[in-house]
Each structure stands twice: as C-alpha cells, then as structure tokens.
C-alpha cells in the first residue's frame, strides 16, 4: 500500500495537444493561489503540442519540484482514453482516475486502434477508483465543446480530493475573469462537471 504524504496533492492532467490542458492547469493553479495554496505546474509547449500526447503536472501544497513522480499522482484527469492508458504509470493503488469518454485516433497511417470498450474495460480491471464522463457532450450542453477541459476540472473538484487545497468558488473566480462568452460557458461546464462526478462514480 502506497502511503502518500498528506501535505500535497499531485494532479496529472493528460490528453491530446489542443484539448485545453494548459488552460486546465492554469485555471486550477490560479485558483490555488487565491486559496493561499502553494502550487507548481509543468507543461509542454512547441513541437510537443501539435496534436501529440500532452501532459500537465499540477502540484498543490508543500512541494519544490514541478514534476510529479511515476507512481505518485493522487489523481489522473484524462481528456482522452488512450492517453489515460499511456500515463497510467503515474498511478498507484490509491490514485483516482477521472476520464473523458473520448477516443482520438493518433494520426498514423494504418494505426491499429484498440476499441473504446476494450480500453475502458482494461483500465477498470486494474481496480482503481475510476470515474468516466462524457465531457465533450456536457461541454456542448454548456455552450461549446471547447469547454470540455472545464467539465473535467469541475469533475476533479467534485471528487473532493482537492478539499483543503482549492475551493470551487476560487475556480469560479478565476473563470469569471475570462471574456464573454467563455465566462458563462466555462462556469456552466465547470458546474456540469462538478455534479456529474458523483453521478458517474461507482
């Protein structure tokens, strides 16, 4: 059994370049600062962003390094299922997985793709607490598919794992500084994500 230090939380956000992972990390980190919580993030720009596999590390609390160790994520938020499987080595026995039910084909001619149900089943079979939601559909409901990242952020807060580190209202405060229409859409997306976490938990 992995006993993780209680003074910090490691959030690993993964997905495909263009899915809004940098914004995800930035909004969460800014909210942490409003909360008075120390935070460090690490992200990937440039070549690594062009539709490639993308990881953002967000570390809240008592840490000095921006990087999350393998086996050391308290929660993995994945915008895409293949990426969830790819970065599962950041999980330990206590890690919570929050996954978007979306599969994006890597742009490789003739690539052999596992089926969505198969990926989900294999991920579930490792026995971690896993929550799967349809973030793109929920974002569409909020006003734009672009806000799927905020749905996932809402779900992360809905998990309560960041209680004591980041309050939902501080995330709303950060989003409320965005221009319209994004302010309204993102707040809606955040709330939809927040409430759907418990609906999709099992």
């Amino acid at each position, binding site marked *: 059994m992995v006993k993780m230090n209680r003074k910090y939380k490691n959030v690993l956000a993964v997905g495909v370049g263009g899915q809004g992972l940098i914004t995800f990390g930035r909004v969460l980190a800014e909210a942490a600062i409003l909360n008075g919580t120390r*935070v460090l993030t690490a992200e990937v720009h440039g070549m690594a962003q062009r*539709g*490639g596999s993308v990881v953002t590390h967000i570390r809240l609390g008592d840490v000095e390094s921006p990087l999350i160790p393998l*086996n050391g994520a308290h929660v993995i938020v994945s915008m895409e299922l293949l990426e969830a499987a790819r970065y599962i080595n950041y999980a330990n026995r206590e890690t919570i997985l929050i996954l978007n039910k979306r599969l994006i084909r890597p742009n490789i001619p003739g690539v052999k793709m596992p089926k969505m149900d198969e990926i989900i089943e294999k991920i579930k079979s490792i026995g971690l607490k896993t929550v799967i939601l349809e973030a793109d559909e929920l974002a569409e409901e909020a006003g734009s598919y672009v806000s799927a990242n905020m749905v996932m952020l809402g779900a992360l807060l809905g998990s309560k794992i960041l209680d004591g580190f980041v309050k939902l209202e501080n995330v709303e405060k950060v989003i409320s500084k965005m221009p319209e229409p994004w302010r309204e859409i993102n707040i809606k997306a955040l709330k939809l994500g927040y409430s759907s976490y418990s609906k999709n938990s099992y």
Partner: protein
Amino acid sequence: MSRVFLEQVGRTVLLMGNEAIARGAVEAGISFASAYPGTPSTEIVETLAKYANVLGIHVEWSINEKVAFEAAYGAAMSGVRALTCMKHVGLNVAADPFMSSAYIGVRGGFVIVTADDVGMWSSQNEQDNRWYGLHAFIPVFEPYSPAEAKELTKEIFDFSEKFEHPVILRTTTRISHARGPVQLGKLRKPVWGEFTKNAERWVVVPAHARKLRLKLLKRWSKIEEAVNNFPFNRIENPGSKKVIIACGITYGHVVDVLREMDKINDITLLKLSSTVPVPRKLVVKAVEDAEEVLVVEELEPIVEDKVKAILQEEGMSAKVHGKDMVPRAGELTLNKVADFLVKFLNVSKQSVPWLGTHQEVSIEVPPRPPTLCPGCPHRATFFALKKAVSKLKMKPVYLGDIGCYTLGVNPPYRVQDTCIEMGGSIGAANGLAVTTKQPMIAIIGDSTFFHAGIPPLINAVYNNTPFLTIILDNRITAMTGHQPHPGTGITASGEPAKIIRPEEIAKSIGVEYIDVVNPFKLDETAEKIAEALKFVEEKRKPAVIVSLRKCALLVISDARKKNIKIPVYRVDLEKCTACTRCYNVFACPAIQVLEDGKAYIDPMLCAGCGDCAQVCPVQAIEPTIKPGKEWEELWW
C-alpha cells in the same frame, strides 16, 4: 500571459517561468529586449512585447539570434539595461558577437537568457550552454523555480552592471514552462542611453583585443570571488558527512525527495544558483566535514569537474560523485533523483513512497506523435509535392529544416530526409546537389528562410547550384506559437510594418525561376512544382516555389474573432467506399475511422480547408455550409 504587468505591486500571482523573467527584467529597469522565438524561451519576449508600449520599452522580434544579440548588446553599450533571449541552439547562431562581448564588456546591465531544452521536448539536441559560459568567460546563473527566476533576473542585472560584463541566465524547459506563485515587485522606468566613443574599448582590432583579453582575465578573477557571496547560493544544514550540491532546477527535485525520505534536516545541501564560475570558497565551506559529495546537475559534469578540481587543489579528500550516479542524458525526474539518492545516502527504497512498480494497462497503446494540424497548408504542399514527384518518376532527396513542417518526416509524407539546424535545408543542398546526381529539394518555412535561409540561397545563385527550394509561407512563426516576422506586416509590439516577401528576395538575388502557389489547389500546385523541377533539371540552376497560405490555427482564431462560421466538411457514408485515402494517404487528423473503415470527419477538429474533398476519389466529402468569400479571404 495575462496579467504580468497589470496586477498590483506586492501581490502574488501565478506566472510561468518565462513571464517571471520578463517581469524581473522590467523590475530591473530594462529599456530594450530582443529575441528570435524558440521553445522554451519564446514567452519572455512575447510577454514583454505585449506591454512594450505601456512600459515604454523597445521590444522586438529580431530576424535571428545573432541580430537579436547584437541589437540588445548595442543597447547595453549605450548604458541602458538590455535583455536578449534565445533557446539553447540559438546561442550557436549568436556565438560570434557573444564571444566578443566578454572582451568588450557592457555599460548597462546585459542579460542573455539561454533556455536550454533538457530532454529535447522541442529541439534537435540538448546541448548544455553552461559550456558557453566557460568558453567565453561569461558567468552563468540558474534559477530553480519561477519565483526565483524573477528575483535572480533582477539580481544579475545589478551583477552585470557592477562588473560591466555580460551575464547568462540559464533556464531549462522545467523552469521556463513551469508556473508558480511570484510576488510582484516595483517596476523601474526605462532610461535613454548615450554611446561614448572609446576605440580602445569598443573596437576589437588585435592591438586592442590583446589588452582587452588581459582585462577580461582580471575581471574574471573578480567575478570568481564575487560569486562566493552571491545571495542565491546557500548552505543548508552544514556539517554532515554526506553533502549534496544541487544546481539550478535540481534543487527543487532534491528537496522534495529528501522530504519524502525524512532526511531534509539531516543532510548538508549546497544550493547553487551560480554554476559558472563555481564559487570556490563556498564549496570548500560546504564540504569541510564531508566524506562523500554528490553533485546533482543535468547534462554535463560542469560543476562536478570543477568541484573535483577545487578539492584536489585544496588538498581535501572527500570522494566526489556526479555522473557516476546522475544520468547524463535527458532531464532529471523525481524518480531518477530518488534512485540515486537512495544509493548515495544508503537508505532503503521504501523510504520513498512512490519508488517501486507502477500500474499497467494490458493493451498496446499506439504512439501519438505530434502531427500537422487539420487544415495545415504544409500538408497540402506535401501532398502536391509527392504527386508532382511521382508524375515525373523522380526520386528526390528532401532536405528539411526547423519548424512545424519538420513533422513531414513522419509517414505518410516522409519529405524530410535531413534536418540539421535553422537554414540547413538550403545550406546542405549547396553540397548535395553538387556531389550527387539525385534531385535535391530544400523545404524551409518562411520564418526560417528569413532567419538563415537567405545567405545559402544567394550562395546557390552565385555558384549556380541546381536544386529546388520550396518556401512554406504561412505568414507567421507558427511552431513557437505565432510570433510575427518580416513577412507578417506587424511588429512584436503590434505596430504595422512593411511586408517583406520571400519571392521578392529571391528575385532580387537573381533566382531565375520563381513561382508562388496556393497549396490548397492541390492539382495546380503539383503541376507548378513539376514545372519548377523540370527547370532545375534542364537549366541546372536554382529555382524557388513559395507556397502561400496562412497557418490554419490563425485562420480559425480569426474566424472566431470575426464570427465567421467554419465550413466544416462531412462524409457522405452512402458514397464513402472506405478506400482510406483521406485518412491514410492525405492523413488529416480531423478524419477519424469508423468501424467499417469508412471516414468520419470530427466537426470539433475540422478546419474547413476542403483538401479532403479534393483528395476523395468518389466525391463523398462535402462542406456542411458553402464556404463564403470572407472565409476564403481569411487564408491570405
């Protein structure tokens, strides 16, 4: 890069390392900043550019790192504080003025930021630019966090000015692209400079340079002494038998691992922010009681070698470890650091909760390399190029270059047989087209052409070297996040600028065959490329094709701003024959594959370029709304 200069002094805000450096430079009172974009350095000058007018400072995207360096150096010669930023390999381009600047020195504080890409997230190598500091006698300072990056930047402007000497701020990707809380300090107003004539100081003819060299060595001794008291270096928990020397970013990693091991209060830790020159007295003091020392640094053993030399010279007997335990290639992670600290400190692996085996999912996860975006005009050019070449039954060598289009190395296109450095496509063609009988095609982006592609093209005209150059002109420096360049029509700070066209440059230097094509007309482009290739073959002279269409990401962002609907395309599944041409041969990432092999265009990803409709052999692809004139115009 939202509010770096808008928030109140004293507030703590979240800043990216690069934003923190920009803030630090303005708190230090810079009047001038220049750079050529390059990951991971870009956001420093990008942040400054956004506020240049408000701050009253000059900020520019220069044509390349050499010019950026010279411009900022010129400013510092006049007595103002100046900043120039580049990625690690950019310093290779700027190496010539860099070497001289140490001899000549400065009047105003002059900070050279080199953002090293340890781990090669977006670069062709992971050179350690601290060597450059040793090579040129220019001190190197390294922060470990965004907050320290700001304070350190401020501090070393003073340091530079005190010694009238240039200094390097070295970051790595994990500093530049990390975010953390930073407390904002007061901004200092920029000032005017004035150049004071003094040939013996500013003109490095041999007679002067010999004297300047001696002065440089004297200055270096003073700098070697000064770093002993540099406020960002410190010894924590002095007196233990095992001592760790943590350089730059590695300090944060080491502290976190020691905390996990519950050893943070037991081990002597020398935190080093000035790594060139290594502060001798501080090292001696830190290792006084030590039996074993571990130097933790990424890449090369620069501090390690120096520490070994110092201990030998001082007659100290502690055993110094470094690259015998710390990996030399790639960036350090907490796992790697924990691995070697477990060994060095001789503690059990169980003391670090996350060391051990990790979870696995029992499916084969296909790789997901970066790819050209949906609607990328480069893809269209590559498709047309392959078509032209196959029509001519030609087997050319594709000489590649640095930019998004380097992704053309991957299947299905494979149109980057080489990639060396900025401008190396046209450069190497000058040799390959002479020593082989194979047709040579140099492929270079617009920004890269301006940066380093013009001299080798002049070389080709001068020497009559037969090859085709294709300039992929998307009107912007795309890979680094859309910085304007001389072909864009706007400056870094948003002023209108003259548009310099690549084909006009080609014309003015005497290229005889020049054509400008619209890559989205796939067949027409293929024909025009074929014509140009025939010209090269028959006339044995250089030819140039400019393939002109804006970056799709810009077009989509413009469309959103102007409320123009993107004419997303769709597949008629009745007509689709699952021939795979659109997703395997044209390979647009917006095209997904259904279970029966038929194509499905993801409306969230489609950029409305319409290329797939041209590629489809059975006309199964059509726009959901008819593309209007205003949509077409966005692409120019």
